[in-house]
């Protein structure tokens, strides 16, 4: 029982780290980015290639995955995404689905369509008992790393100049521009960081999330649930949403394997119908 809770929290934390970048894209630029999962997948494959082919230690591969996904994100944002900010949502959807299809096919071409596993170091495998609760070492690591990331994110957002600029831009883009904040640059940096975090999450969670070319499509709905249910005005909203989703999904798969997916999608629809702005928002009139 508690083990399920524990696994659910690990899963939820992972979902949060991957999708927090998406919350910014959506909240700041009002951009529907369905390709966010592709960056997570690239990060995961980057770690996979480094660890399994070149023998890089697992921990060293994580920052590389972050940088790799962030670089690709930065390039994609400056070269492609930038053309779509003022377009209709339909065009953004088409464009990003196109990107997803292309990355999936490319990964399939270069690395094959089978599911891949990163060789974890032996000290991360197995589980130990903690007052009768079975705790997987690998999942414990995920929780620790993600908790660290959440704290750092909260500090950056709340206590740095960049963070206050970002919050200002999310709250009201026009006024922020009027105050002389370079919203485009803030956005480009945040977008890259968001992609990097997605890549890090993809690398960290390769074991749980199953790394294969159709990863972005399979998890697209999960990332979207996190941001649309959690709202985009803070990071607490998406955080709570992802923890709930993680626990719900793991528990659903464990207790009612036949109806797990069904329940989650139904709950999502109900929440969206009742609170289109998200569960944890202050009810802005944007």
């Amino acid at each position: 029982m508690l083990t399920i809770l524990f696994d659910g929290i690990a899963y939820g934390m992972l979902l949060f780290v991957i999708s927090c970048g998406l919350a910014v894209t959506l909240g700041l630029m009002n951009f529907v980015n369905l390709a966010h999962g592709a960056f997570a997948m690239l990060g995961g494959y980057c770690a996979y290639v480094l660890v399994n082919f070149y023998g890089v230690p697992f921990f060293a591969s994580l920052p590389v995955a972050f940088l790799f996904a962030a670089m690709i994100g930065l390039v994609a944002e400056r070269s492609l995404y930038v053309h779509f900010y003022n377009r209709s949502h339909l065009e953004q959807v088409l464009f990003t689905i196109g990107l997803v299809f292309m990355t999936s096919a490319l990964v399939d071409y270069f690395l094959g369509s089978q599911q891949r596993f990163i060789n974890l170091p032996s000290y991360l495998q197995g589980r130990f008992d903690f007052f009768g609760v079975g705790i997987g070492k690998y999942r414990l690591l995920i929780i620790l790393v993600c908790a660290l990331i959440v704290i750092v994110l909260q500090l950056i957002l709340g206590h740095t100049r960049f963070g206050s600029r970002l919050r200002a831009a999310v709250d009201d883009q026009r006024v922020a521009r009027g105050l002389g904040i370079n919203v485009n640059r803030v956005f480009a940096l945040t977008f890259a960081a968001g992609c990097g975090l997605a890549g890090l999450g993809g690398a960290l969670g390769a074991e749980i999330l199953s790394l294969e070319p159709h990863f972005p499509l399979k998890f697209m709905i999960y990332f979207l649930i996190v941001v649309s249910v959690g709202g985009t005005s803070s990071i607490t909203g998406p955080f709570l949403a992802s923890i709930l989703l993680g626990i719900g999904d793991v528990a659903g798969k464990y207790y009612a394997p036949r109806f797990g997916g069904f329940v989650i999608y139904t709950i999502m629809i109900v929440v969206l119908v009742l609170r289109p702005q998200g569960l944890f928002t202050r009810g802005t009139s944007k």
Partner: protein
Amino acid sequence: MSTADTFRQADAALKKKRAWHWLEYVFWLAVAATVFLFPSQHTLLTQIAIWSLFALSLDLLLGYAGIVSLGHAAYFGFGAYVAALFAINFTGEPLTVLLVAGIAAGLLGLVTSLLVLRGSDLTRLMVTLGIALVMYELANQMSWLTGGADGLTGMPVNPVFGVFPISFRPTNSYIYVLCVLFVLFVVARRIVHSPFGYSLRAIKGNPLRASSIGISTNRRLIAVYALGAAYAGVAGALLAQTTPVVSLTYIDFQRSADVLLMLIIGGTGYLYGGIVGSALFLIAQKFIGNVTPQYWEFWIGFALVVIALFARDRGVFSIIERVANALRKEKAKP
């Protein structure tokens, strides 16, 4: 000028706008000619005609009412399953089956429209996607009814009007599907050129203004959503009648994405886009898919990005137009 005069003028203007252009006659004659010109390709052509109807149903939502849907396959698949189950349990009379499937999918659309037509574009995307996923899960889990992952087989298809057999006869199936497509196209064309159709376009342009001139926005959107769902259901039923098995691929995300892509390739908001788009898509798939079947996905993605970057409402035609314009400018330079 009296009110009666204004009405008469408006009526005349509408009539003029909905008159058939000569190119449309040429188009449908060419379509009819494919029956005789490509006898060996009738299986592919049947697919094209069914996808055309499906894309047409999405065009009603997207091109006329501006509703973006990522889960339109929900209604397609629902129509197909209803058609198969109805044919197995009651009668295999094809037109009755189509009618039942269309009504069932339309009712589903009517109910789900209450969920879809709230909130912003993003909420709609999510809800349509969610509905399709729920339908997929349902079809997967209710295997006692739907056959689950194995699919549903053994659906009887009687001859049309008792005299025109269509099962396992590619040419007859094609003629049958084409006739259904044409009839439903004419109906859709009449609808979008009616005052109702124009009010939809007004809502698409600016919902606030539309409601302030007295259009009941929500009710019209619900009506068109149900209509689009019914059309999709008929398309699903047609596919069920012309292929031996109804399976989960009828409802999956790939189908929703493909139909959106076909419509976008052909262009939205003039009804022919779905037909042109699905023809281009399926023919390209046949050729490219033959060379590198697994990397077809890459080219779909590429096409989507290019179209999203350069095309506007008219799909491939706007790209052609842009290239032509660019060439003309190049020539005009001294």
